[in-house]
Each structure stands twice: as structure tokens, then as C-alpha cells.
């Protein structure tokens, strides 16, 4: 169970607004997060991952306090080990597909399974600059899964995928999430693209 109670001031085009969220995310659950642009969806994911420190609040993950602003506790992102799929992919330009996964895990069997799932087996030697948008997005998802995260934060993870690829990948991901017991938070502008990923909904803004 991940319990989040945070308050954070956001700088919006029409002045400051407050991002205030109090929510429980049961272990193994999938949460679809939606809301208008600038409402703080990405900021919320980054606060959970530890990239942004909120003005106030607590985050408790499976009984461990990741954040408590009053007690000046903030576990760094590398210790939280929350998988993160970035909206802009954030792939490492110097690494090939294979190297991305090897950087995250030293388990070759797991790497092969992920490559197969993302249909990237034939692109292992390619760097991100030589992959299509869809391939880059799949690599970003595979890299985030490579550490077998207990918590996975996905920011617009399927936006560059065509319908058949998305449907197939979502089906595979569902099975994997169940196998790993991963708690998943997915931000999407288009909740309809998350068809097949049933769970709770959180609307921000």
C-alpha cells in the first residue's frame, strides 16, 4: 500500500495553484490519472518518484516513510526505486537498446523476455536516434520494468503506439504487473487509450 498526502504550489500560466492530493494506492492496483494540462499530473508522479520535493506532505510506501516534510525525511529517488516512464522517454543517447536494459539489470533472461515483449529483439544494437517514436516509447517502458519495480509511474506511456501494438502491449503488461505485484500509476490525457487496464481513477485539477 502506498499512501500519499501532499500539498504543493504549482506555477500555472494564470498564477499559482495548489496541487493537493490525499490518496491510497493498494498494492498491485492500477490507477489511471487524468486531468487538464498544467493540473500537475506529471508533477504528482515526480513527487512520488522523489524528483520533486513538495511543499508539504507525507508518502508512505509499504510501511516505509519515503517523505515527511515535517520530519525532514526524503528518501532519494535511487533508494525509492520507483520505475518511471517519462513522457519524453528520457532515453540515454549514448546507449543501445541492449545497453539500456543492461544498465538497469544484470539478468540476461529477464532482458530477453522484455525485448520479446516490446518486440525490440531485432533492434538491440540500435541507439535511440535510430529508433522510431513507437520503438523509443516501448524501450522507455521496458527500461522502467527492467528493475522489476514494486511501483511503476507511467507518464503518457502509450501516446506514440498504434492501436494494435498498444492493445497487445497492454495485454502483456497486465500479466507482468500481476506477476510482479506492481502498483501502477498511469497518467493519460486520453483514458480511452488505457482500455484493458482496469483499476481506480484519479482526476487531478
Amino acid at each position, binding site marked *: 500500500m502506498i499512501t500519499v498526502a501532499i500539498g504543493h504550489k504549482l506555477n500555472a500560466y494564470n498564477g499559482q495553484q495548489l496541487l493537493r492530493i490525499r490518496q491510497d494506492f493498494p498494492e498491485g492496483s492500477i490507477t489511471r490519472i487524468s486531468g487538464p494540462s498544467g493540473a500537475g499530473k506529471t508533477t504528482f508522479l*515526480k513527487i512520488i*518518484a*522523489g*524528483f520533486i520535493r513538495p511543499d508539504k506532505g507525507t508518502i508512505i510506501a509499504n510501511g516505509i516513510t519515503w517523505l515527511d516534510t515535517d520530519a525532514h525525511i526524503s528518501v*532519494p*529517488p*535511487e*533508494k525509492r*526505486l*520507483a*520505475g*518511471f516512464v*517519462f513522457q*519524453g522517454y*528520457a*532515453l*540515454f*543517447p*549514448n546507449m543501445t537498446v541492449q545497453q539500456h536494459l543492461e*544498465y*538497469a539489470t544484470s539478468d540476461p533472461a529477464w532482458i530477453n523476455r522484455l525485448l520479446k515483449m516490446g518486440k525490440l529483439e531485432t533492434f538491440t544494437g540500435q541507439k535511440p536516434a535510430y529508433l522510431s517514436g513507437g520503438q523509443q516509447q516501448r524501450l522507455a517502458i521496458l*527500461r*522502467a520494468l*527492467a*528493475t522489476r519495480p514494486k511501483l511503476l509511474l507511467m507518464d503518457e506511456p502509450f501516446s506514440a503506439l498504434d492501436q494494435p501494438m498498444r492493445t497487445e502491449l497492454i495485454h502483456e503488461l497486465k500479466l507482468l504487473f500481476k506477476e510482479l505485484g506492481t502498483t501502477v500509476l498511469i497518467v493519460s490525457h486520453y483514458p480511452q487509450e488505457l482500455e484493458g487496464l482496469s483499476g481506480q481513477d484519479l482526476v487531478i485539477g
Partner: protein
Amino acid sequence: MDLTPIWLTLKLAGITTFVLLAIGLPVARWLSRGRSFFKIIIEAIITMPLVLPPSVLGFYLLMAFSPRQGVGKWLHDVFDIQFVFSFQGLVLASVIYSMPFMIGPIKSALQQLPVSLSEASASLGKTRWQTFIHVLLPNIKPSLLTAMVLTFAHTLGEFGVVLMIGGNIPGVTRVASIAVYDSVEQMDYHTANVYSLILFSVTFALVIAVFVFNKYNAKSPLT
């Protein structure tokens, strides 16, 4: 023809580049992250050699490291180290004088990398050091090379600073730029021409190499 000044110059430039690389990487990384008044002061100090007359810098170094007073006397008495009129003094002066050429390009390149690269690496459980070595450094290779070549080439051309702190001791502190000046003073234009031509050729070859490495369209050594 005595080629000692050329070898001495290349040795000085090589050591300076190596020392500055070791110092410059962590300092540039530190400067590239966030802003504070303290960082602005440090950055201004590092940038000063760009605008300060070399003779002024050389004068202050001469005063600071004179074995007759202050730090220089302490270093001489306690560690038997003398920076004035010695090769190690040239290295010290060159490191200070060329510091902005190493730190500037590296800092700018690190600042231009998207923050999300570091965040992605951290989300995989990697420490800041691992992220720096495996993600940040490989992605600023052209700027790193530019910084190293600029530092090396700038050290080759030093004159005022090295003359002030090192003087003109053959085989010890008489580097090529000073040898050129010395030869001209003695009306030996042939020797001055040979030293100048070698310095020109080495510098030109280095700059060409950077352009080739950066595939013509990446970072110009002038930016």
C-alpha cells in the same frame, strides 16, 4: 636547433590539461546544478583569467608564492616546494590561467542535458556518481574534447603568466612562447620562425582534429 622549449611546452600543456580535467569535471558538475550566490562568486573567480591581463595574474601568483613571504614561504619551509621560477610553478599558473577553458564548456554542456536523463538513471537505482560516469559524461563527449583541446592549446600559447612566475630558465621554465620572444629580442628570426611554426602547426592540427571528431556540425571550438 634546441627543441627543449617545444618539449617543455608540450609537457606543460599535457600536465595542465590532465590536472584541469581532474579538477574541472567535479567543479563543472557542481556549478551546473542550481544557482546560489556562493556559486556565482566561485564562477566569477574561475572566469577572471579570461579578462584579467596575464601579467596581473602572474604578478599576484609571484607575490603569493614568493619563498620570502606568506604561503610561498610556508610551502618552502614545511614541504620544500618552490613555485616561483620552477616548472611546478608553471603548472600551477597554467592550471589557474586555463581553468575557464576547461570548466566553461563542460559546465554548459552539462546544463544543456535534459534533467530527465539524470532522473531516469536515478529511477533505476543508480547513484549520482554512476549517473555522472555512465550517462552524463558520455553524452557531453564533444564538449569534453573541445574543453581539453582548448585548455591544451591555450596553455601552448601562454606568455605573460609563465614569464612572471617562471622567468626564462633554459630547460626549466623557458617554454616555446618565451623562446620566440627571446629569439626575436636577439634578432634570431630563423629560430623564432621555427618555434612559431611548430606552435602554429600543433594548434592548427588540434583544432582540425576537434572539427573532424565533432563531424563538422557539432560544437565549434569557438563556442
